């Protein structure tokens, strides 16, 4: 046996030696595969890591138009969806130095991405920006995104996202049936969900309704709505809140969190929402179905197109109304979640052979012309013209033409790459019209839409949301020292879920136990550190 092991080791050593020689040899032919050159008439190839969402780059007319306009040629590295594995693939490609000119990264700037910067695999935008790129510069220098700079340089160019990207709607017909108004504070809210649950608001004679629905165990949207009538916060776990005295603490450690979950616990015991919520996984589509099925009375939405389409498919009328955030106990206005200002980033790896050209492309996509092309396609083909309906610019779309280039059943009548591609989501941010001051232009975002979506009472959903949307401390910050680690988040989520489902008399004991464990696991130091950083920020 011993001898055999020795042999094995010897063979292993030989194998390892052989394979590393092979690796070195293979490594030699790696150099010198640069793309096209800027000068001359040859189109410059841009190798772009991007989700394609069913678009065929060989035939897609929008892409062809972009390529002609800018004398470029796209070579797509198709990234399959925004999953965890996609992250792994991106990490492998970027960190092993695979040739890429541009990356659309649909995830946050975390420790891994900061490692890239540290290891020098990304280019800094400032090193290549010229006076030809005022739009990009305006975004990078925006006050809203100042937290993204690393030693004064930008490596991550955000794709802006409307502030008020998520709001709440409630069934008007149910409110009428139970004789109540849209709730304005927590007491009224409680009354409404109770009536929705027990007074048969859909009039089918059965006890089959809930006040609201929780679509994932964190309950960040449904629970968050309640929590924000106590304090402005996030509800994902590991989020910060600012207290009345100007200091910060983690939401979980605040008294408001305890009261929030005490209220939720009461709702749970009275069956006002789905008790099996712990087993739901991002059940947004399911929630829309439940609305149509007349089983729940309200939900959070990022848009109503999908929901209205489901109503239509079922042959039913939607009678919905906007539900503003609840007032706090002292009568002041509660808040809605803020998007943090962006979703996704453009990064340029150092393997990029022509950064200027990539910047030209990104710059163009932020102009009104570029934005229109990437949102609704080619004028005269995919849409006939535009008209103004009040504040809204309406694109009169040509559905048959759109059908030819993309799958409208899945992506609707806007270009699939209109968000999370070359461009941001929503309408048009008039940077040029506002002297390239992004912070001024951002709230003035022009609404763009298609005729189908008009007159639904939710045309201006995002504008209404934006009135209430508020960031919480360190939201979207990339400072890793103020991030709760996974262990803390686990304790928080598991603890609060347990407090909801276990007997009511144990609520405080459960909450205390969770808090104690959380503090001991590093929570106390985190709060201390957070306050130091917060004080520095306030001093600036």
């Amino acid at each position, binding site marked *: 046996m011993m*001898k*055999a092991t020795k*042999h094995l080791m010897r063979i*292993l050593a030989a*194998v*390892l030696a*052989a*394979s*590393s020689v*092979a*690796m070195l040899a293979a490594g030699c032919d790696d150099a010198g595969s640069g793309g096209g050159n800027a000068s001359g008439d040859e189109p410059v190839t841009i190798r772009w890591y991007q989700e394609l969402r069913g678009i065929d780059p060989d035939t897609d007319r929008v892409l062809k138009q972009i390529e002609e306009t800018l004398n470029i040629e796209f070579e797509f590295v198709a990234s399959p969806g925004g999953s*965890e594995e996609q*992250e792994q693939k991106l*990490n*492998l490609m*970027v*960190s*092993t*130095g695979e040739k890429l000119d541009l990356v659309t990264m649909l995830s946050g700037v*975390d*420790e*891994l991405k900061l*490692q*890239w910067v*540290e*290891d*020098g*695999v990304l280019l800094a935008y400032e090193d290549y920006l010229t006076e030809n790129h005022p739009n990009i510069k305006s975004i990078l220098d925006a006050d809203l995104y100042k937290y993204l700079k690393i030693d004064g340089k930008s490596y991550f160019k955000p794709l802006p996202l409307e502030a008020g990207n998520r709001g709440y709607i409630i069934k008007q017909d149910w409110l009428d049936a139970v004789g109540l108004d849209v709730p304005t504070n927590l007491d009224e809210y409680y009354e409404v969900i109770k009536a929705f649950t027990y007074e048969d608001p859909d009039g089918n004679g059965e006890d*089959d309704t809930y006040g609201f629905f929780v679509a994932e*165990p964190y309950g960040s949207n449904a629970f968050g709505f309640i929590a924000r009538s106590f304090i402005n916060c996030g509800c994902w776990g590991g989020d910060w809140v600012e207290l009345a005295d100007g200091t910060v603490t983690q939401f979980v450690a605040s008294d408001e969190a305890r009261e929030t979950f005490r209220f939720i616990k009461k709702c749970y015991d009275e069956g006002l929402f789905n*008790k*099996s919520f*712990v*087993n*739901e*996984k991002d059940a947004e589509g399911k929630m829309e179905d439940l609305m149509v099925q007349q089983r729940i009375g309200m939900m959070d939405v990022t848009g109503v197109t999908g929901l209205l389409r489901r109503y239509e498919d079922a042959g039913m009328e939607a009678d919905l109304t906007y539900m503003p955030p609840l007032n706090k106990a002292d009568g002041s206005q509660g808040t809605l979640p803020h998007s943090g200002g962006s979703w996704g980033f453009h990064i340029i790896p150092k393997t990029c052979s022509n950064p200027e050209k990539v910047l030209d492309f990104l710059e163009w996509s932020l102009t009104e012309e570029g934005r229109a092309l990437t949102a609704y396609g080619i004028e005269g083909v995919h849409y006939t013209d535009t008209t103004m309906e009040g504040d809204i610019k309406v694109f009169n779309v040509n559905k048959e033409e759109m059908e030819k280039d993309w799958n409208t059943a899945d992506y609707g009548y806007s270009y699939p790459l209109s968000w999370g591609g070359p461009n941001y989501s929503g309408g048009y941010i008039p940077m040029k019209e506002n002297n390239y001051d992004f912070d001024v232009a951002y709230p003035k975002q022009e609404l763009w839409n298609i005729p189908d979506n008009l007159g639904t009472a939710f045309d201006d959903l995002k504008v209404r949301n934006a009135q209430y949307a508020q960031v919480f401390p360190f939201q979207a910050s990339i400072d890793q020292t103020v991030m709760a*680690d*996974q*262990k803390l988040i*686990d304790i928080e*989520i*598991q603890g609060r*879920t*347990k407090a909801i*489902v276990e007997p009511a008399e144990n609520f405080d004991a459960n909450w205390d136990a969770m808090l104690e464990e959380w503090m001991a696991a590093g929570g106390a130091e985190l709060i201390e550190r957070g306050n130091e950083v917060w004080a520095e920020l306030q001093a600036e």
Partner: protein
Amino acid sequence: MATAKAGKLAPQKSNAKRAALWRAIKKYKYFYLMLAPVLAWYIIFCYGPMYGVLTAFQDYSMSRGVFRSPFVGLEHFRTLFADTLFWRAFRNSVIIAVYRVIFEFPIPIILSILINELRSSWVRKVTQTLLYLPHFLSWVIVASIIVTFFNPDTGLLAAVAELFGAEVPPNLITPGSFRALLVITNIWKEAGWGMIIYLASMSSVDANLYEAAYVDGANRFQRTWHITLPALRSVIAVQMILLAGSVLRSGFDQVFNLQNPLVMETGDIIDTYVYRTVTKENEFSYASAIGLFNSVICTALLLLANMLSKKLSDESIY
């Protein structure tokens, strides 16, 4: 081992041995020819990247690569041994593995024998095909179907319970039920698939044996016991040994998709724990240390199972 023994012997004997070995190698030359592409594959695709295990001893960053990342010695292992959440996950993995061995392992064997005993050949075929289908549903889908079926308001279970005047509790996936749920759902999904190898082995039993036994007056139970089962013995042993070596790392997809925040105490396994730390915190080296630790345990289990099997039944995988 011929070569290993050679060294101990006196020179002239050693020469004779060497000649004998050379003759043997020559005799088996076609087999070495067969093995050449296989060995090449293992060298290139398994041992080529093997240097990656070094990352467990480094502060590894992918962009620096293995050769430029700093070494930190056993630091990650020290962290690991002090990490209570890791030990909780480890304990859960072991317990779940034991459950799997006890409850999941025999089911496909029993099922394949029972189905083999069905008289009507079309019933046998239909059942086999049906049993094999759930293997092709991913766990994401199975999990969502389970939630639908368990739904206390609208699910099938609620409907059945109503017939008996009972009520389904709001949540059936609890710390107490979670491990049982893992075993049951895995049996549902994989038992039919697991049968295949046993059915294949059964079908190669010499039909004459059955006839001879029949003539000798053996009944069906006796025939199964004395002919079918012994024919399966070697494949059962191999399956058991390989299972012993892989139980600790099986079932990520299943556990991850069925988990909820309430069941972590009993249901967080090593793989789900690693998943959370790596994807969210960029701790590649730490994950690789856990992986290495896991590998060592698995190898030990495999060797142990192999040794036991050799002692008890004279079956081993090599």
